[in-house]
Protein backbone atom coordinates (compact mmCIF):
# COMPACT_ATOMS: atom_id res chain seq x y z
CA UNK A 1 0.00 0.00 0.00
CA UNK A 2 1.20 3.45 -0.84
CA UNK A 3 2.69 5.02 2.32
CA UNK A 4 1.17 8.37 1.33
CA UNK A 5 -2.20 7.04 2.50
CA UNK A 6 -0.81 6.75 6.01
CA UNK A 7 0.09 10.43 5.83
CA UNK A 8 -3.48 11.32 4.96
CA UNK A 9 -4.63 9.24 7.91
CA UNK A 10 -2.09 11.00 10.15
CA UNK A 11 -3.30 14.41 9.00
CA UNK A 12 -6.90 13.33 9.59
CA UNK A 13 -6.17 12.07 13.10
CA UNK A 14 -4.26 15.24 13.88
CA UNK A 15 -7.18 17.36 12.73
CA UNK A 16 -9.66 15.31 14.77
CA UNK A 17 -7.43 15.76 17.80
CA UNK A 18 -7.04 19.51 17.26
CA UNK A 19 -10.79 19.94 16.75
CA UNK A 20 -11.40 17.93 19.92
CA UNK A 21 -9.10 20.17 21.95
CA UNK A 22 -11.00 23.22 20.76
CA UNK A 23 -14.51 21.80 21.12
CA UNK A 24 -14.54 19.48 24.13
CA UNK A 25 -14.93 20.96 27.60
CA UNK A 26 -13.70 18.21 29.91
CA UNK A 27 -10.00 18.66 30.69
CA UNK A 28 -9.40 14.90 30.55
CA UNK A 29 -11.01 14.63 27.11
CA UNK A 30 -9.08 17.68 25.90
CA UNK A 31 -5.94 15.99 27.10
CA UNK A 32 -6.85 12.74 25.33
CA UNK A 33 -7.26 14.74 22.13
CA UNK A 34 -3.75 16.11 22.59
CA UNK A 35 -2.52 12.55 22.94
CA UNK A 36 -4.33 11.69 19.72
CA UNK A 37 -2.45 14.53 18.02
CA UNK A 38 0.86 13.16 19.30
CA UNK A 39 -0.04 9.71 17.99
CA UNK A 40 -0.91 11.22 14.62
CA UNK A 41 2.60 12.71 14.62
CA UNK A 42 4.00 9.25 15.36
CA UNK A 43 2.15 7.78 12.42
CA UNK A 44 3.48 10.51 10.16
CA UNK A 45 7.03 9.92 11.40
CA UNK A 46 6.84 6.19 10.76
CA UNK A 47 5.27 6.65 7.34
CA UNK A 48 7.95 9.15 6.31
CA UNK A 49 10.59 6.82 7.71
CA UNK A 50 9.29 4.09 5.40
CA UNK A 51 9.26 6.46 2.42
CA UNK A 52 12.80 7.70 2.95
CA UNK A 53 14.19 4.32 3.92
CA UNK A 54 15.99 5.60 7.01
CA UNK A 55 15.31 4.84 10.65
CA UNK A 56 15.27 8.37 12.07
CA UNK A 57 11.50 8.59 12.03
CA UNK A 58 11.05 5.32 13.89
CA UNK A 59 13.52 6.40 16.56
CA UNK A 60 11.68 9.71 16.94
CA UNK A 61 8.43 7.80 17.41
CA UNK A 62 9.93 6.16 20.50
CA UNK A 63 10.99 9.54 21.86
CA UNK A 64 7.49 10.86 21.25
CA UNK A 65 5.97 7.98 23.19
CA UNK A 66 8.23 8.68 26.15
CA UNK A 67 7.39 12.38 26.02
CA UNK A 68 3.68 11.55 25.81
CA UNK A 69 4.02 9.29 28.86
CA UNK A 70 5.81 12.03 30.81
CA UNK A 71 3.14 14.48 29.76
CA UNK A 72 0.44 12.11 31.07
CA UNK A 73 2.14 11.94 34.44
CA UNK A 74 2.34 15.70 34.82
CA UNK A 75 -0.98 16.45 33.15
CA UNK A 76 -3.10 13.98 35.07
CA UNK A 77 -1.55 15.12 38.33
CA UNK A 78 -2.50 18.71 37.60
CA UNK A 79 -5.97 17.88 36.32
CA UNK A 80 -6.72 15.58 39.26
CA UNK A 81 -5.63 18.24 41.76
CA UNK A 82 -7.94 20.71 40.03
CA UNK A 83 -10.77 18.18 40.07
CA UNK A 84 -10.35 17.41 43.76
CA UNK A 85 -10.52 21.10 44.64
CA UNK A 86 -13.55 21.91 42.48
CA UNK A 87 -15.33 18.59 41.87
CA UNK A 88 -15.34 19.46 38.19
CA UNK A 89 -12.86 18.91 35.41
CA UNK A 90 -14.55 21.30 33.01
CA UNK A 91 -12.22 23.85 31.49
CA UNK A 92 -15.10 26.36 31.45
CA UNK A 93 -15.47 26.25 35.23
CA UNK A 94 -11.84 27.21 35.69
CA UNK A 95 -12.40 30.91 35.22
CA UNK A 96 -11.23 32.65 38.40
CA UNK A 97 -9.03 34.96 36.42
CA UNK A 98 -11.51 36.10 33.83
CA UNK A 99 -11.77 39.87 33.75
Amino acid at each position, binding site marked *: MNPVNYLYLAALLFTIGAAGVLIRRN*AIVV*FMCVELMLNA*CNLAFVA*FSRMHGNL*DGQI*IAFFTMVVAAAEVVV*GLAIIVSLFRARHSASVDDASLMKL
Partner: protein
Amino acid sequence: MSATAVHSLWTTAAEPIGKITAPKIEYAQLAPVLIVVGAAVLSVLVEALVPRRGRYHTQVFLTVVALAAGFAAVVGLAAGGYGSTKAQIAAMGAIAVDGPALFLQGTILLASIVAVFTFAERRLDPAHHGHRVDSFAAEAAAVPGSEQEKAAVKAGFTTTEVFPLVLFAVAGMLVFPAANDLLTLFIALEVFSLPLYVLCAVARRKRMMSQEAAVKYFLLGAFSSAFLLFGIALLYGYAGSVSYARIADVVDGNVTAMDPALAATMGNDALLLIGFAMVLMGLLFKVGAVPFHMWTPDVYQGAPTPVTGFMAAATKVAAFGAMLRLLYVVLPGLTWDWRPVMWAVAIVTMLGGAIVAITQTDIKRLLAYSSIAHAGFLLAGVIAATPDGVSSVLFYLGAYSFVTIGAFAVVTLVRDAGGEATHLSKWAGLGRRSPLVAAVFAVFLLAFAGIPLTSGFAGKFAVFKAAAEGGAGGLVVVGVLSSAVAAFFYIRVIVLMFFSEPKVDGPTVAVPSPLTMTTIGVGVAVTLVLGLAPQYFLDLAGQASVFVR
Protein backbone atom coordinates in the same frame (compact mmCIF):
# COMPACT_ATOMS: atom_id res chain seq x y z
CA MET B 1 6.20 -9.75 -3.85
CA SER B 2 9.70 -10.41 -5.12
CA ALA B 3 12.65 -10.25 -2.78
CA THR B 4 14.08 -7.14 -4.42
CA ALA B 5 10.85 -5.25 -3.99
CA VAL B 6 11.02 -5.64 -0.22
CA HIS B 7 12.23 -2.47 1.36
CA SER B 8 15.77 -2.41 2.65
CA LEU B 9 14.50 -1.74 6.15
CA TRP B 10 13.02 -5.20 6.35
CA THR B 11 16.00 -7.02 4.95
CA THR B 12 18.82 -5.55 7.03
CA ALA B 13 17.76 -7.44 10.14
CA ALA B 14 18.38 -10.79 8.44
CA GLU B 15 22.00 -9.91 7.77
CA PRO B 16 24.49 -10.11 10.60
CA ILE B 17 24.54 -6.80 12.41
CA GLY B 18 27.88 -5.11 12.04
CA LYS B 19 29.75 -3.47 14.83
CA ILE B 20 27.88 -0.48 16.14
CA THR B 21 30.32 2.34 16.61
CA ALA B 22 29.93 4.13 19.88
CA PRO B 23 28.85 7.74 19.48
CA LYS B 24 31.44 10.38 20.27
CA ILE B 25 30.26 12.72 22.99
CA GLU B 26 32.23 15.90 23.73
CA TYR B 27 31.68 15.93 27.48
CA ALA B 28 33.73 19.08 28.07
CA GLN B 29 31.73 21.13 25.57
CA LEU B 30 28.46 19.87 27.02
CA ALA B 31 29.58 20.54 30.59
CA PRO B 32 27.07 23.35 31.37
CA VAL B 33 24.11 21.12 30.54
CA LEU B 34 25.60 18.02 32.15
CA ILE B 35 26.34 19.84 35.41
CA VAL B 36 22.78 21.11 35.69
CA VAL B 37 21.20 17.75 34.79
CA GLY B 38 23.51 15.95 37.22
CA ALA B 39 22.60 18.37 39.98
CA ALA B 40 18.91 17.92 39.16
CA VAL B 41 19.20 14.14 39.58
CA LEU B 42 21.18 14.62 42.78
CA SER B 43 18.52 17.02 43.96
CA VAL B 44 15.83 14.36 43.51
CA LEU B 45 17.95 12.04 45.65
CA VAL B 46 18.24 14.75 48.29
CA GLU B 47 14.46 14.92 48.31
CA ALA B 48 14.32 11.18 48.95
CA LEU B 49 17.18 10.71 51.40
CA VAL B 50 17.82 13.88 53.39
CA PRO B 51 15.60 14.34 56.47
CA ARG B 52 12.92 16.97 56.13
CA ARG B 53 14.66 19.41 58.48
CA GLY B 54 17.79 19.68 56.36
CA ARG B 55 16.21 19.55 52.93
CA TYR B 56 15.59 23.22 52.34
CA HIS B 57 19.15 24.29 53.05
CA THR B 58 20.66 21.37 51.13
CA GLN B 59 18.47 22.05 48.12
CA VAL B 60 19.13 25.78 48.02
CA PHE B 61 22.86 25.22 48.38
CA LEU B 62 22.96 22.47 45.73
CA THR B 63 20.84 24.45 43.26
CA VAL B 64 22.81 27.67 43.54
CA VAL B 65 26.17 25.89 43.41
CA ALA B 66 25.10 23.84 40.37
CA LEU B 67 23.85 26.88 38.48
CA ALA B 68 27.01 28.82 39.35
CA ALA B 69 29.17 25.88 38.26
CA GLY B 70 27.21 25.70 35.02
CA PHE B 71 27.83 29.39 34.47
CA ALA B 72 31.54 28.92 35.20
CA ALA B 73 31.60 26.14 32.58
CA VAL B 74 29.95 28.46 30.04
CA VAL B 75 32.50 31.19 30.77
CA GLY B 76 35.29 28.61 30.49
CA LEU B 77 34.04 27.45 27.09
CA ALA B 78 33.64 31.03 25.87
CA ALA B 79 37.15 31.91 27.08
CA GLY B 80 38.43 28.79 25.32
CA GLY B 81 37.20 30.20 22.02
CA TYR B 82 34.18 27.90 21.59
CA GLY B 83 32.03 30.97 21.09
CA SER B 84 33.99 32.12 18.06
CA THR B 85 36.89 30.29 16.41
CA LYS B 86 36.35 26.83 17.85
CA ALA B 87 32.56 26.85 17.50
CA GLN B 88 31.44 23.33 16.66
CA ILE B 89 28.62 20.82 16.62
CA ALA B 90 28.80 18.41 19.55
CA ALA B 91 27.08 15.17 20.53
CA MET B 92 26.84 13.66 17.03
CA GLY B 93 25.17 16.72 15.56
CA ALA B 94 22.58 17.16 18.29
CA ILE B 95 23.90 20.25 20.05
CA ALA B 96 25.68 23.32 18.74
CA VAL B 97 28.39 24.92 20.85
CA ASP B 98 28.72 28.40 19.40
CA GLY B 99 28.47 32.07 20.28
CA PRO B 100 24.70 32.50 20.49
CA ALA B 101 24.29 29.22 22.38
CA LEU B 102 26.92 30.08 24.97
CA PHE B 103 25.71 33.68 25.36
CA LEU B 104 22.13 32.56 25.93
CA GLN B 105 23.14 29.70 28.23
CA GLY B 106 25.13 32.17 30.31
CA THR B 107 22.14 34.52 30.44
CA ILE B 108 19.75 31.72 31.42
CA LEU B 109 22.07 30.46 34.16
CA LEU B 110 22.65 33.91 35.67
CA ALA B 111 18.95 34.74 35.50
CA SER B 112 18.10 31.38 37.11
CA ILE B 113 20.50 31.99 39.99
CA VAL B 114 18.83 35.27 40.92
CA ALA B 115 15.41 33.72 40.33
CA VAL B 116 16.23 30.83 42.67
CA PHE B 117 16.99 33.37 45.40
CA THR B 118 13.36 34.47 45.22
CA PHE B 119 12.26 30.80 45.33
CA ALA B 120 14.23 30.37 48.55
CA GLU B 121 12.81 33.49 50.24
CA ARG B 122 11.19 32.56 53.58
CA ARG B 123 10.70 35.84 55.42
CA LEU B 124 7.82 37.44 53.55
CA ASP B 125 4.99 35.56 55.25
CA PRO B 126 4.82 35.43 59.03
CA ALA B 127 5.94 32.08 60.41
CA HIS B 128 3.18 29.44 60.77
CA HIS B 129 3.35 27.34 63.94
CA GLY B 130 6.98 28.33 64.35
CA HIS B 131 7.95 27.26 60.84
CA ARG B 132 9.22 29.71 58.25
CA VAL B 133 7.27 29.50 55.02
CA ASP B 134 8.14 30.27 51.41
CA SER B 135 5.89 30.98 48.43
CA PHE B 136 5.08 27.33 47.85
CA ALA B 137 2.31 25.12 49.20
CA ALA B 138 2.92 23.09 52.33
CA GLU B 139 1.63 20.04 50.50
CA ALA B 140 0.71 20.61 46.89
CA ALA B 141 -1.33 17.40 46.69
CA ALA B 142 -3.66 18.42 49.53
CA VAL B 143 -6.99 19.95 48.56
CA PRO B 144 -7.01 23.71 49.27
CA GLY B 145 -8.71 24.41 52.60
CA SER B 146 -8.84 20.75 53.64
CA GLU B 147 -7.88 19.19 56.95
CA GLN B 148 -4.96 17.54 55.24
CA GLU B 149 -3.62 20.92 54.17
CA LYS B 150 -4.01 22.34 57.67
CA ALA B 151 -2.13 19.36 59.09
CA ALA B 152 0.63 19.84 56.53
CA VAL B 153 0.95 23.53 57.40
CA LYS B 154 0.99 22.72 61.10
CA ALA B 155 3.71 20.13 60.60
CA GLY B 156 5.75 22.74 58.73
CA PHE B 157 5.99 20.86 55.44
CA THR B 158 7.42 22.76 52.48
CA THR B 159 7.53 21.92 48.81
CA THR B 160 11.29 21.70 48.42
CA GLU B 161 10.64 19.75 45.21
CA VAL B 162 10.59 23.11 43.45
CA PHE B 163 14.39 23.09 43.40
CA PRO B 164 14.88 19.87 41.40
CA LEU B 165 12.04 21.05 39.14
CA VAL B 166 13.83 24.35 38.51
CA LEU B 167 17.06 22.52 37.76
CA PHE B 168 15.38 20.25 35.22
CA ALA B 169 13.67 23.24 33.63
CA VAL B 170 16.99 25.09 33.41
CA ALA B 171 18.62 22.02 31.85
CA GLY B 172 15.98 21.97 29.13
CA MET B 173 16.35 25.69 28.60
CA LEU B 174 20.11 25.33 28.19
CA VAL B 175 19.65 22.72 25.47
CA PHE B 176 16.80 24.56 23.72
CA PRO B 177 18.76 27.43 22.09
CA ALA B 178 21.67 25.06 21.35
CA ALA B 179 19.58 22.29 19.79
CA ASN B 180 20.93 21.47 16.37
CA ASP B 181 18.32 19.00 15.24
CA LEU B 182 14.56 19.05 15.47
CA LEU B 183 14.32 16.02 17.76
CA THR B 184 16.62 17.66 20.34
CA LEU B 185 14.55 20.82 19.98
CA PHE B 186 11.35 18.95 20.81
CA ILE B 187 12.81 17.01 23.73
CA ALA B 188 14.39 20.15 25.19
CA LEU B 189 11.06 21.95 24.88
CA GLU B 190 9.30 19.22 26.84
CA VAL B 191 12.08 18.95 29.41
CA PHE B 192 11.70 22.59 30.34
CA SER B 193 7.94 22.84 29.90
CA LEU B 194 6.85 19.91 32.07
CA PRO B 195 8.57 21.16 35.26
CA LEU B 196 7.16 24.64 34.61
CA TYR B 197 3.60 23.24 34.47
CA VAL B 198 4.10 21.68 37.89
CA LEU B 199 5.79 24.79 39.32
CA CYS B 200 2.76 26.88 38.32
CA ALA B 201 0.48 24.68 40.41
CA VAL B 202 2.19 24.87 43.79
CA ALA B 203 1.49 28.37 45.13
CA ARG B 204 0.96 28.67 48.91
CA ARG B 205 -1.66 31.43 48.67
CA LYS B 206 -4.50 31.60 46.14
CA ARG B 207 -4.08 27.91 45.41
CA MET B 208 -7.20 27.55 43.29
CA MET B 209 -5.92 30.22 40.96
CA SER B 210 -2.53 28.61 40.87
CA GLN B 211 -3.98 25.21 39.92
CA GLU B 212 -6.16 26.83 37.31
CA ALA B 213 -3.14 28.57 35.81
CA ALA B 214 -1.29 25.24 35.71
CA VAL B 215 -4.16 23.49 33.92
CA LYS B 216 -4.42 26.26 31.34
CA TYR B 217 -0.69 26.36 30.77
CA PHE B 218 -0.49 22.61 30.57
CA LEU B 219 -3.37 22.06 28.12
CA LEU B 220 -2.35 24.91 25.83
CA GLY B 221 1.34 24.03 26.12
CA ALA B 222 0.68 20.40 25.22
CA PHE B 223 -1.55 21.54 22.34
CA SER B 224 1.17 23.80 20.97
CA SER B 225 3.89 21.18 21.36
CA ALA B 226 1.73 18.74 19.39
CA PHE B 227 1.69 21.33 16.58
CA LEU B 228 5.45 21.68 16.87
CA LEU B 229 5.84 17.91 16.66
CA PHE B 230 3.62 17.57 13.60
CA GLY B 231 5.64 20.34 11.98
CA ILE B 232 8.79 18.40 12.76
CA ALA B 233 7.22 15.31 11.17
CA LEU B 234 6.46 17.25 7.99
CA LEU B 235 9.96 18.76 7.84
CA TYR B 236 11.39 15.28 8.36
CA GLY B 237 9.23 14.07 5.52
CA TYR B 238 10.47 16.93 3.36
CA ALA B 239 14.20 16.51 3.99
CA GLY B 240 14.49 12.89 5.12
CA SER B 241 16.39 14.06 8.18
CA VAL B 242 15.86 16.17 11.28
CA SER B 243 19.37 17.62 11.33
CA TYR B 244 19.43 21.39 10.86
CA ALA B 245 22.37 21.31 8.46
CA ARG B 246 20.77 18.61 6.32
CA ILE B 247 17.41 20.39 6.14
CA ALA B 248 19.17 23.64 5.22
CA ASP B 249 21.01 21.81 2.43
CA VAL B 250 17.80 20.32 1.09
CA VAL B 251 16.05 23.70 1.25
CA ASP B 252 18.91 25.30 -0.65
CA GLY B 253 19.06 22.40 -3.11
CA ASN B 254 22.68 21.42 -2.26
CA VAL B 255 22.12 17.71 -1.96
CA THR B 256 24.92 15.46 -3.14
CA ALA B 257 23.41 12.00 -2.71
CA MET B 258 19.92 12.06 -4.18
CA ASP B 259 17.59 9.10 -3.81
CA PRO B 260 14.19 8.80 -5.47
CA ALA B 261 12.26 9.25 -2.23
CA LEU B 262 14.07 12.48 -1.43
CA ALA B 263 13.64 13.71 -4.99
CA ALA B 264 9.89 13.16 -4.62
CA THR B 265 9.49 14.85 -1.23
CA MET B 266 11.84 17.78 -1.69
CA GLY B 267 9.84 18.93 -4.65
CA ASN B 268 6.83 19.21 -2.38
CA ASP B 269 6.87 22.73 -0.96
CA ALA B 270 3.65 22.13 0.97
CA LEU B 271 5.54 19.82 3.33
CA LEU B 272 8.23 22.43 3.87
CA LEU B 273 6.00 25.46 4.30
CA ILE B 274 3.30 23.85 6.44
CA GLY B 275 5.88 22.01 8.51
CA PHE B 276 7.90 25.13 9.06
CA ALA B 277 4.82 27.18 9.94
CA MET B 278 3.81 24.61 12.55
CA VAL B 279 7.26 24.50 14.13
CA LEU B 280 7.31 28.29 14.25
CA MET B 281 3.86 28.24 15.84
CA GLY B 282 5.19 26.10 18.67
CA LEU B 283 8.05 28.53 19.27
CA LEU B 284 5.84 31.64 19.04
CA PHE B 285 3.57 30.06 21.64
CA LYS B 286 6.49 29.74 24.04
CA VAL B 287 7.56 33.38 23.61
CA GLY B 288 3.95 34.51 24.00
CA ALA B 289 3.53 36.27 20.66
CA VAL B 290 0.05 37.33 19.52
CA PRO B 291 -2.05 35.36 18.41
CA PHE B 292 -0.53 32.58 20.54
CA HIS B 293 -0.46 34.67 23.74
CA MET B 294 -3.80 33.83 25.36
CA TRP B 295 -2.20 31.75 28.11
CA THR B 296 0.28 34.42 29.18
CA PRO B 297 -1.82 36.73 31.40
CA ASP B 298 -3.64 33.91 33.21
CA VAL B 299 -0.53 31.86 33.82
CA TYR B 300 1.55 34.84 34.91
CA GLN B 301 -1.18 35.92 37.30
CA GLY B 302 -1.96 32.52 38.78
CA ALA B 303 1.53 31.08 39.13
CA PRO B 304 3.53 31.73 42.31
CA THR B 305 5.27 35.07 41.70
CA PRO B 306 8.85 33.74 41.94
CA VAL B 307 7.92 31.15 39.30
CA THR B 308 6.36 33.84 37.13
CA GLY B 309 9.59 35.84 37.22
CA PHE B 310 11.71 32.82 36.38
CA MET B 311 9.36 31.69 33.63
CA ALA B 312 8.97 35.15 32.10
CA ALA B 313 12.70 35.66 31.87
CA ALA B 314 14.28 32.29 31.18
CA THR B 315 11.62 30.81 28.89
CA LYS B 316 11.75 33.85 26.69
CA VAL B 317 15.53 33.70 26.42
CA ALA B 318 15.51 30.01 25.56
CA ALA B 319 12.65 30.23 23.06
CA PHE B 320 14.05 33.24 21.22
CA GLY B 321 17.40 31.47 21.02
CA ALA B 322 15.79 28.45 19.41
CA MET B 323 13.80 30.66 17.05
CA LEU B 324 16.91 32.56 15.95
CA ARG B 325 18.77 29.33 15.24
CA LEU B 326 15.85 27.87 13.32
CA LEU B 327 15.37 30.96 11.17
CA TYR B 328 19.04 31.78 10.60
CA VAL B 329 20.58 28.31 10.30
CA VAL B 330 17.85 26.09 8.84
CA LEU B 331 15.84 28.46 6.74
CA PRO B 332 17.96 31.30 5.40
CA GLY B 333 16.82 30.05 2.01
CA LEU B 334 13.23 30.80 2.96
CA THR B 335 13.78 34.33 4.30
CA TRP B 336 11.42 35.78 1.73
CA ASP B 337 8.71 33.38 2.82
CA TRP B 338 8.93 33.83 6.58
CA ARG B 339 9.59 37.54 6.75
CA PRO B 340 6.11 38.78 5.76
CA VAL B 341 4.48 36.36 8.23
CA MET B 342 6.79 37.42 11.03
CA TRP B 343 6.20 41.08 10.15
CA ALA B 344 2.50 40.58 10.75
CA VAL B 345 3.08 38.63 13.98
CA ALA B 346 5.51 41.26 15.28
CA ILE B 347 3.13 44.14 14.54
CA VAL B 348 0.08 42.57 16.19
CA THR B 349 2.24 41.42 19.12
CA MET B 350 3.68 44.89 19.79
CA LEU B 351 0.39 46.71 19.40
CA GLY B 352 -1.76 44.01 21.03
CA GLY B 353 0.46 43.71 24.09
CA ALA B 354 0.79 47.46 24.59
CA ILE B 355 -2.86 48.35 24.03
CA VAL B 356 -4.44 45.57 26.09
CA ALA B 357 -2.01 46.29 28.94
CA ILE B 358 -3.62 49.71 29.41
CA THR B 359 -6.87 48.16 30.59
CA GLN B 360 -5.28 45.87 33.18
CA THR B 361 -5.92 46.36 36.88
CA ASP B 362 -3.68 43.62 38.24
CA ILE B 363 0.04 44.25 38.41
CA LYS B 364 0.96 40.68 37.40
CA ARG B 365 -1.38 40.75 34.42
CA LEU B 366 0.01 44.16 33.49
CA LEU B 367 3.52 42.75 33.50
CA ALA B 368 2.27 39.77 31.48
CA TYR B 369 0.93 42.02 28.72
CA SER B 370 4.11 44.05 28.93
CA SER B 371 6.05 40.83 28.32
CA ILE B 372 3.90 40.21 25.24
CA ALA B 373 4.77 43.67 23.92
CA HIS B 374 8.44 42.97 24.59
CA ALA B 375 8.18 39.72 22.65
CA GLY B 376 7.05 41.90 19.75
CA PHE B 377 10.07 44.21 20.08
CA LEU B 378 12.34 41.17 20.12
CA LEU B 379 10.64 39.81 17.01
CA ALA B 380 11.53 43.07 15.24
CA GLY B 381 15.19 42.25 15.89
CA VAL B 382 14.71 38.67 14.73
CA ILE B 383 13.17 39.88 11.48
CA ALA B 384 16.24 42.00 10.69
CA ALA B 385 17.91 38.80 9.41
CA THR B 386 21.37 40.34 9.79
CA PRO B 387 24.24 39.63 12.23
CA ASP B 388 23.27 42.87 13.99
CA GLY B 389 19.79 41.47 14.39
CA VAL B 390 21.18 38.45 16.25
CA SER B 391 23.46 40.48 18.50
CA SER B 392 20.75 43.02 19.34
CA VAL B 393 18.29 40.27 20.25
CA LEU B 394 20.93 38.60 22.44
CA PHE B 395 21.60 41.89 24.22
CA TYR B 396 17.90 42.65 24.62
CA LEU B 397 17.26 39.22 26.12
CA GLY B 398 20.06 39.67 28.63
CA ALA B 399 18.82 43.11 29.64
CA TYR B 400 15.13 42.16 29.73
CA SER B 401 15.49 39.00 31.82
CA PHE B 402 17.05 40.77 34.82
CA VAL B 403 14.52 43.60 34.73
CA THR B 404 11.69 41.06 34.68
CA ILE B 405 12.98 38.95 37.55
CA GLY B 406 13.64 42.09 39.57
CA ALA B 407 10.17 43.50 38.89
CA PHE B 408 8.42 40.27 39.93
CA ALA B 409 10.63 40.10 43.02
CA VAL B 410 9.32 43.55 44.02
CA VAL B 411 5.76 42.30 43.46
CA THR B 412 6.35 39.59 46.09
CA LEU B 413 7.14 42.26 48.71
CA VAL B 414 3.89 44.23 48.59
CA ARG B 415 1.52 42.20 50.73
CA ASP B 416 -1.70 42.30 52.69
CA ALA B 417 -3.59 39.71 54.71
CA GLY B 418 -4.38 37.61 51.64
CA GLY B 419 -0.78 37.33 50.46
CA GLU B 420 0.52 39.49 47.67
CA ALA B 421 -1.54 42.59 46.99
CA THR B 422 -1.48 42.52 43.23
CA HIS B 423 -4.44 44.77 42.50
CA LEU B 424 -3.18 48.08 41.15
CA SER B 425 -5.47 50.16 43.41
CA LYS B 426 -3.58 48.78 46.40
CA TRP B 427 -0.31 50.12 45.04
CA ALA B 428 -1.59 53.69 45.34
CA GLY B 429 0.68 55.83 47.47
CA LEU B 430 3.30 53.13 47.86
CA GLY B 431 5.97 55.76 47.22
CA ARG B 432 4.95 57.65 50.37
CA ARG B 433 4.92 54.57 52.57
CA SER B 434 8.10 52.86 51.35
CA PRO B 435 9.97 55.16 49.01
CA LEU B 436 12.84 52.75 48.41
CA VAL B 437 10.72 49.84 47.14
CA ALA B 438 8.64 52.18 45.02
CA ALA B 439 11.75 53.82 43.59
CA VAL B 440 13.27 50.44 42.70
CA PHE B 441 10.04 49.38 41.02
CA ALA B 442 9.99 52.70 39.16
CA VAL B 443 13.48 51.97 37.83
CA PHE B 444 12.26 48.61 36.49
CA LEU B 445 9.18 50.21 34.94
CA LEU B 446 11.30 52.88 33.28
CA ALA B 447 13.56 50.14 31.92
CA PHE B 448 10.49 48.31 30.54
CA ALA B 449 9.37 51.57 28.97
CA GLY B 450 12.79 52.08 27.39
CA ILE B 451 13.69 55.40 28.99
CA PRO B 452 17.33 56.44 28.34
CA LEU B 453 19.97 55.52 30.93
CA THR B 454 18.27 52.17 31.55
CA SER B 455 19.05 48.82 29.94
CA GLY B 456 15.64 48.88 28.26
CA PHE B 457 16.62 51.87 26.17
CA ALA B 458 19.94 50.36 25.06
CA GLY B 459 18.19 47.11 24.15
CA LYS B 460 15.32 48.73 22.29
CA PHE B 461 17.67 51.05 20.45
CA ALA B 462 19.86 48.13 19.34
CA VAL B 463 16.87 46.07 18.21
CA PHE B 464 15.19 48.88 16.30
CA LYS B 465 18.47 49.98 14.70
CA ALA B 466 19.10 46.43 13.50
CA ALA B 467 15.55 46.17 12.20
CA ALA B 468 15.81 49.47 10.32
CA GLU B 469 19.12 48.48 8.76
CA GLY B 470 17.70 45.07 7.90
CA GLY B 471 15.01 46.74 5.81
CA ALA B 472 12.18 46.59 8.33
CA GLY B 473 11.67 50.34 8.69
CA GLY B 474 7.90 50.06 8.90
CA LEU B 475 8.25 47.71 11.81
CA VAL B 476 10.40 50.24 13.63
CA VAL B 477 7.71 52.90 13.23
CA VAL B 478 5.11 50.54 14.72
CA GLY B 479 7.60 49.59 17.42
CA VAL B 480 8.21 53.18 18.46
CA LEU B 481 4.48 53.92 18.46
CA SER B 482 3.68 50.93 20.64
CA SER B 483 6.59 51.84 22.92
CA ALA B 484 4.90 55.19 23.41
CA VAL B 485 1.61 53.45 24.23
CA ALA B 486 3.45 51.11 26.60
CA ALA B 487 5.27 54.03 28.27
CA PHE B 488 1.84 55.44 29.15
CA PHE B 489 0.83 52.55 31.37
CA TYR B 490 4.26 52.16 32.95
CA ILE B 491 4.30 55.84 33.84
CA ARG B 492 0.73 55.56 35.10
CA VAL B 493 1.85 53.00 37.68
CA ILE B 494 4.69 55.30 38.74
CA VAL B 495 2.28 58.23 39.08
CA LEU B 496 -0.05 55.99 41.08
CA MET B 497 2.75 55.00 43.43
CA PHE B 498 4.16 58.47 44.03
CA PHE B 499 1.39 61.00 43.49
CA SER B 500 -1.68 59.53 45.11
CA GLU B 501 -2.65 59.29 48.74
CA PRO B 502 -1.95 55.95 50.42
CA LYS B 503 -5.06 54.04 51.49
CA VAL B 504 -5.66 53.46 55.16
CA ASP B 505 -6.05 49.71 54.82
CA GLY B 506 -3.34 49.53 52.17
CA PRO B 507 -0.79 46.75 51.88
CA THR B 508 2.40 46.56 53.86
CA VAL B 509 5.81 46.11 52.36
CA ALA B 510 7.52 43.05 53.76
CA VAL B 511 11.16 43.26 54.70
CA PRO B 512 12.81 40.45 52.77
CA SER B 513 15.84 38.38 53.63
CA PRO B 514 19.15 39.09 51.86
CA LEU B 515 18.08 36.57 49.18
CA THR B 516 15.35 38.69 47.62
CA MET B 517 17.40 41.81 48.30
CA THR B 518 20.18 40.29 46.20
CA THR B 519 17.74 39.52 43.38
CA ILE B 520 16.38 43.05 43.36
CA GLY B 521 19.85 44.54 43.79
CA VAL B 522 21.25 42.56 40.87
CA GLY B 523 18.24 43.58 38.80
CA VAL B 524 18.79 47.27 39.51
CA ALA B 525 22.55 46.99 39.00
CA VAL B 526 22.21 45.23 35.64
CA THR B 527 19.54 47.70 34.55
CA LEU B 528 21.73 50.69 35.31
CA VAL B 529 25.05 49.22 34.10
CA LEU B 530 23.57 48.07 30.79
CA GLY B 531 21.88 51.45 30.50
CA LEU B 532 24.86 53.64 31.31
CA ALA B 533 27.67 51.62 29.74
CA PRO B 534 26.16 49.15 27.31
CA GLN B 535 29.08 49.13 24.89
CA TYR B 536 31.06 46.28 26.44
CA PHE B 537 28.01 44.04 26.50
CA LEU B 538 26.92 45.06 23.01
CA ASP B 539 30.40 44.11 21.80
CA LEU B 540 30.15 40.82 23.66
CA ALA B 541 26.79 40.09 22.02
CA GLY B 542 28.27 41.16 18.69
CA GLN B 543 31.14 38.70 19.03
CA ALA B 544 28.68 35.97 20.01
CA SER B 545 26.35 36.46 17.08
CA VAL B 546 27.71 33.90 14.63
CA PHE B 547 25.88 30.59 14.36
CA VAL B 548 27.77 27.42 13.60
CA ARG B 549 26.26 25.19 10.98
